[in-house]
């Protein structure tokens, strides 16, 4: 199946449309909430919580005996929340650092979940298979019902986000200030953590436990590179997330044997790499270009400063001097000389150079940051 066929199918095929819509919504909500996780330096909380949700799924199945997705997800939500708050308790009450707490909760909850899953599998009850779809996720099992559910959660989440925008923002960047203003920091914190857990739990069915953290992180990390404004970042992250969802679904649908989760993650990772390299203000490429330009400017300035030192010892600043007295050490090359001439800082006449008024003025103020460069 080629891409064009895929887009034709997208409008005709019910299943594919449902799945694409589901992954798009998931990507958007993860991008939005992921922005907060990344800015709060809780990037790996997502990884820990998604693993911590597993025993909840198993226990919900053991108690109710159904495979109803919503019931299982409520179990996942509860055990995810327990995990999240236990992590907080460990870092707050003991001297263990957050990385240890995250790794600990992640592995222990997941191991316990596996114990329960294998225990369930050995039970004489034929209804148990299919729980392990939460491990790696199966976007193909998304039903229209699930998508509606996801969409309504996203809507609620969006509303809360808009309602408490100011509080969330101030919490992120200056928590002490938020406290002095009298905001109930604990409640806001609880709210945002719960929403992050909710987003993760929603994603479990689609991309699975292992790759969920990337869904949360990657769009936000990519969006961070393009802007310094929280609002734009959240919107961008949602767009990146939704795009990765749709494109990932398209690619995996157009090939055989490609599971959706890993492809979505790889698409999101491509966004990240692209943003890391090509973002105009922070990207590696432009940063390197700026670096090279600065280095060249420095060479020019060095030559100019040397020329200035000579010129200021003469009455007439435009008194010609031999090119020979310049050397490598002063940053002189044939190219730098012609560049200075281009900028009209000097005039070159045969083997002699002379400073211009403009060049003299510029060189005199070279280290004076008050004067704006006017080129």
């Amino acid at each position, binding site marked *: 199946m080629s891409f064009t066929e895929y887009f034709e199918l997208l409008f005709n095929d019910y299943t594919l449309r449902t799945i694409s819509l589901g992954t798009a919504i998931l990507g958007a909500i993860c991008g939005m909430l992921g922005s907060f996780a*990344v800015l709060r330096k809780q990037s790996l909380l997502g990884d820990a919580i998604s693993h911590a949700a597993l025993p909840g799924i198993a226990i919900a199945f053991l108690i109710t005996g159904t495979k109803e997705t919503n019931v299982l997800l409520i179990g996942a939500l509860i055990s995810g929340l327990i995990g999240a708050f236990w992590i907080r308790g460990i870092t707050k009450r003991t001297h263990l650092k957050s*990385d240890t707490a995250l790794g600990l909760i992640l592995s222990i909850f997941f191991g316990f979940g596996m114990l329960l899953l294998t225990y369930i599998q050995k039970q004489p009850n034929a209804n148990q298979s299919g729980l392990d779809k939460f491990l790696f996720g199966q976007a193909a099992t998304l039903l229209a019902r699930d998508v509606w559910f996801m969409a309504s959660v996203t809507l609620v989440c969006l509303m809360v986000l808009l309602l408490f925008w100011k509080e969330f923002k101030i919490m992120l960047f200056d928590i002490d200030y938020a406290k002095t203003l009298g905001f109930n920091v604990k409640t806001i914190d609880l709210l945002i953590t719960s929403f992050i857990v909710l987003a993760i739990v929603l994603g479990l069915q689609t991309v699975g436990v*292992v*790759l969920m953290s990337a869904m949360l992180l990657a769009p936000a990390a990519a969006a961070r590179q393009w802007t310094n404004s929280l609002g734009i970042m959240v919107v961008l992250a949602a767009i990146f997330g939704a795009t990765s969802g749709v494109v990932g679904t398209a690619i995996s649908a157009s090939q055989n044997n490609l*599971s959706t989760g890993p492809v979505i993650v790889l698409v999101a*990772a491509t966004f990240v790499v692209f943003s890391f390299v090509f973002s105009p203000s922070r990207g590696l490429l432009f940063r390197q270009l700026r670096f090279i330009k600065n280095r060249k400017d420095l060479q020019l300035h060095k030559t100019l400063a040397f020329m200035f030192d000579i010129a200021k010892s003469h009455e007439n600043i435009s008194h010609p001097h031999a090119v020979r007295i310049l050397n490598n050490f002063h940053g002189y090359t044939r190219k730098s000389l012609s560049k200075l001439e281009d900028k009209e800082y000097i005039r070159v006449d045969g083997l002699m150079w002379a400073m211009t008024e403009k060049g003299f003025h510029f060189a005199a103020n070279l280290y004076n940051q008050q004067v704006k460069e006017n080129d």
Partner: protein
Amino acid sequence: MTSAQLEIQLIASLVAIACAIPGTFLVLRKMALISDAISHSILPGLVIGFFITHDLGSPLLIIMAALSGVVTVILVEFIQKTRLVKEDTAIGLVFPALFSIGVILISKNANDVHLDTDVVLLGELAFAPFDRLLIDGMDFGPTSLWTIGVILLITLSLLFAFFKELKISTFDAGLATALGFSPVVLHYGLMSVASVTTVGAFDAVGAILVVALMIAPAATAYLLTDNLKKMLLLSVFFGVFSAIAGYWLAHWLDASISGSMTTVLGMVFLLVYLFAPKRGLISVLYRNKQQQIEVSLLTFLLHLNNHWEEKERHINHLNEHINWQKVRSKSVVDLALRNNMITIEKDIISLTDKGKNFTDKAIDYIITNDDSKIESIKEDFFLFRG
């Protein structure tokens, strides 16, 4: 107990020891999550190794997997150095991407081989004894026993050889560099050991248990001691204990061995987290409570010290003046009475000589912030102890 059962427990214990040693240093260096990242991102290395050799038992697989573990560390550090994102974000970006590549490689190319993501993540210790090491038809025991044994031997000899260097660079990287131990070499050395251990252990116990075995025993031990040697020994002990107890739990429940080992690790951690003598949750909460009461006591005594008027020292006045609840002021007054710091006559409280003395010392301490002033009262109070 059959010999297969004995072998499983032996393998599990060796894995636990081999993981606990690098795990201790990872926890101390605040790099615990690197083990999680490595355990996931060895997958593409394994798959590529398998495509080259087409043999699941080949040592090349282990080498490739360990290499991709080290590549993970290098990638994470590269992203950190660009300062585009924070450290933990770098980890969170790298390993899911590598893991996804591994999963896709498997699903595209190796559908019909026994190389399954479930197995990679979860492992199956129960099958370990069936994979025997045969040389010229002689049975030398299970292969994974030998693999993990060799890795453990290497880890132990490196630990003994470089204990001092590891210790210094863990606690004071600046000093270590000044003394001439290259932090880079030690860092990558530790990362390589962690990577190789993860690879060697995972086909016996699975990626997640490796993470649990690295972090949980070390974290549990860290709640109990500050001494590096004791911490190493304790985490080895917790690891081995959980391995053996976990095996029997799995035997009893007829469930995954690695899952139940992790569960035992979790329960041990929970117990220590709650009941550790100094750092446990209960003792921390108790200490906080005590400190609260003592701060109140101090405020109360200072108040008495400042006021000679009877009105200010009336027992009912305290409630309104220092703004305390009834219960709290009663407990503070009781505490002060028990320590003979105050006397109460007709509901008027006055300081005794002892109380006066104590208050003066406390004021001295608050003003000068000099520890020697309070040596004599330290005994009675939690507040000044730490």
